[in-house]
């Protein structure tokens, strides 16, 4: 379970406040969606949870299954079960995708006191999961995200998620830049990972991804706060009327 209490965040370098008291609880096994206009702070929330530099938490806390995330290093948060599928996956020239995946899987196992995966076992698992996402051997060999299309990058994020088996998955605009087929592939990948022990926070600007990944709860974020929470019908309301009505209503 992820609990965020009264989270206030400003930029480290400037006096710009971005998150102005976010309160949110994602119960274990549930899928929550966060929708909201551009610039409302959705990506910032995901970065702050995963430990990116450049932000300063001025108040509040974030607790994942009893562990206080905000004091931890990014790699410790990952080992604790947090995963962020990036809105803009990063290209790393010179580091092979396979090497990257294997290093990450084994680093997390090591941090949890588990044995490393053998090469043979790793290969078997990665091939299986890659196949389901239509990621071919060539893509696995290439440097991380280098020369990948937008859709390939997003599928690669889901592959990493599948390999790392996190407890808490945050997907930041995973649907952006995808055509319908690619979105379907990504959604299937996410749905295959849904389980009792795993929670999702799906950040999206549009409702369409939520047609494929059915959320249990929908939150609307605006100007650094969660301004409204409801069921799946809230997403449909946004789809039909845009954000303006909802925002007018709460502000």
């Amino acid at each position, binding site marked *: 379970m992820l609990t965020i209490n009264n989270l206030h965040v400003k930029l480290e370098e400037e006096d710009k406040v971005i998150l102005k008291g976010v309160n949110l609880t994602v119960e274990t096994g549930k899928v929550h969606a966060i929708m909201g206009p551009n610039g409302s702070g959705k990506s910032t929330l995901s970065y702050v949870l995963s430990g990116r530099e450049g932000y300063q938490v001025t108040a509040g806390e974030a607790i994942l299954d009893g562990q206080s995330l905000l004091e931890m290093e990014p790699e410790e948060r*990952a080992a604790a079960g947090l995963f962020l599928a990036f809105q803009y996956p990063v290209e790393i020239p010179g*580091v092979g995708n396979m090497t990257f995946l294997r290093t990450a899987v084994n680093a*997390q196992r090591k941090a949890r006191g588990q044995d490393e995966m053998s090469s043979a076992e790793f290969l078997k698992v990665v091939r299986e999961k890659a196949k389901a996402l239509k990621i071919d051997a060539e893509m696995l060999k290439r440097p991380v995200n280098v020369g990948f299309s937008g859709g390939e990058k997003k599928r690669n994020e889901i592959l990493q998620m599948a390999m790392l088996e996190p407890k808490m998955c945050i997907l930041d605009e995973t649907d952006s830049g995808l055509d319908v087929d690619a979105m379907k592939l990504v959604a299937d990948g996410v749905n295959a990972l849904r389980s009792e022990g795993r929670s999702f926070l799906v950040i999206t600007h549009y409702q369409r991804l939520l047609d494929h990944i059915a959320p249990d709860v929908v939150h609307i974020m605006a100007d650094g706060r969660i301004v409204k929470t409801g069921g799946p019908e809230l997403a449909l309301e946004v789809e039909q009327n845009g954000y303006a009505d909802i925002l007018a209503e709460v502000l």
Partner: protein
Amino acid sequence: MAQAKAKGGAERLAAVALPASGAWLAAARGAALARAQEMGLPTRRDEYWRYTDPTTLTAATAPAAALFAAGDEPAAFAAIDRVTLVFTDGVFDAAASDDPAAAGVELTRLALAGQADIHWARELYGVLEARGQNPVPRPLAALNGALATDGVVIRVTGKAAKPVSLVYRHAATTSDAVLHHIIRLEPGADLTLLESGPGAARFSTVTEVDVADGASFHHIRTQGRDHERRTLTHIFARIGAQARFKSFTLTANGVLTRNEVVMELLGDDSVAHVAGAAMGDGGFHHDDTVFITHAAERCESRQVFKKVLKGGAVGVFQGKILVKQGAQKTDGYQISQSLLLDDDSQFLAKPELEIYADDVKCSHGSTSGAIDETALFYLRSRGVPERLAQALLVQAFLAQAIEEIEDEAIAEDIRGRLEGWLARRMG
């Protein structure tokens, strides 16, 4: 007036005593010493020594250098089937060496060749070095030719059965070793030369390589890790038509390293690649100085130099491509990059192009930058600890230089060595 500049090191050069040797070598030494005296020893005022202080290289005696305990680090090229010749502080160690005959090439030592009349050796010793003195003087290479106590003399007519591996051990903390190698690849010949180890407290090598038409020369070198060692190397190469020359150097540590490569592409359709990967921390000064002359048509030259610098380390790159008149369709590429792991480190680059032909493609780029924080965060967000993530990015940065090595087993040895170093330093 410019001419009035006092010749550096005149006293030291006047006091030089040449090693005893047979007739042709004695003459070659005398001529080399005369060249050095004519040029004078380098000082920081010389154009190509502005970024690197030559004082400890020109001093009459070598500054002491402590020995480095390699610990569990495997010997370089251990898994490669090769013919090993060992020089300890510049002195050949027969007991530790393989039978040179196993390489399937004509191979003798300079100390022995000097006594015999080997006409091709006589035509090479000091000859390529002398050609390489113009337009940039390299007096320390001439001084090496005067003083070299030993080295290898290799002639290859076909494909060498095995790589020749020169292993340079460092045993005495004040050793001062000078080796000079001459290598002749006859038309169509093929040789891989491996070099490894620190060699001495102060170590100078000159390698003159004559690559005839259709021949291939592969050179892979790792320079020893002794933190206080000083190394000066020169490669002078003359390359014929449809020939290949490839040289790669891996350097980690050493208080001072200067690797000079001077080559001339004299025949059409040849390929010459020079690459280097260097990594240093603290009192580390690493200088790559390269001069490539294109004097024939349709030749390709590539320079790929990568340096990772930390804790006040200094990297230098001085690379020049000269395309002579008539050297049409030249393809010259040069890149030098450094990754600065902190604000104390420094990279000084002097890339130069001088082109006298109108139908050529030449490019050069020189950059230095910090580690990519976005990539670092991406790796860490997947659970990779910071130091390991940094090591992965360092390896990735150096990979482009290592890719220049054609032989996959040798490239793997280099990659493994680098990975081991990084794991010990950063893990």
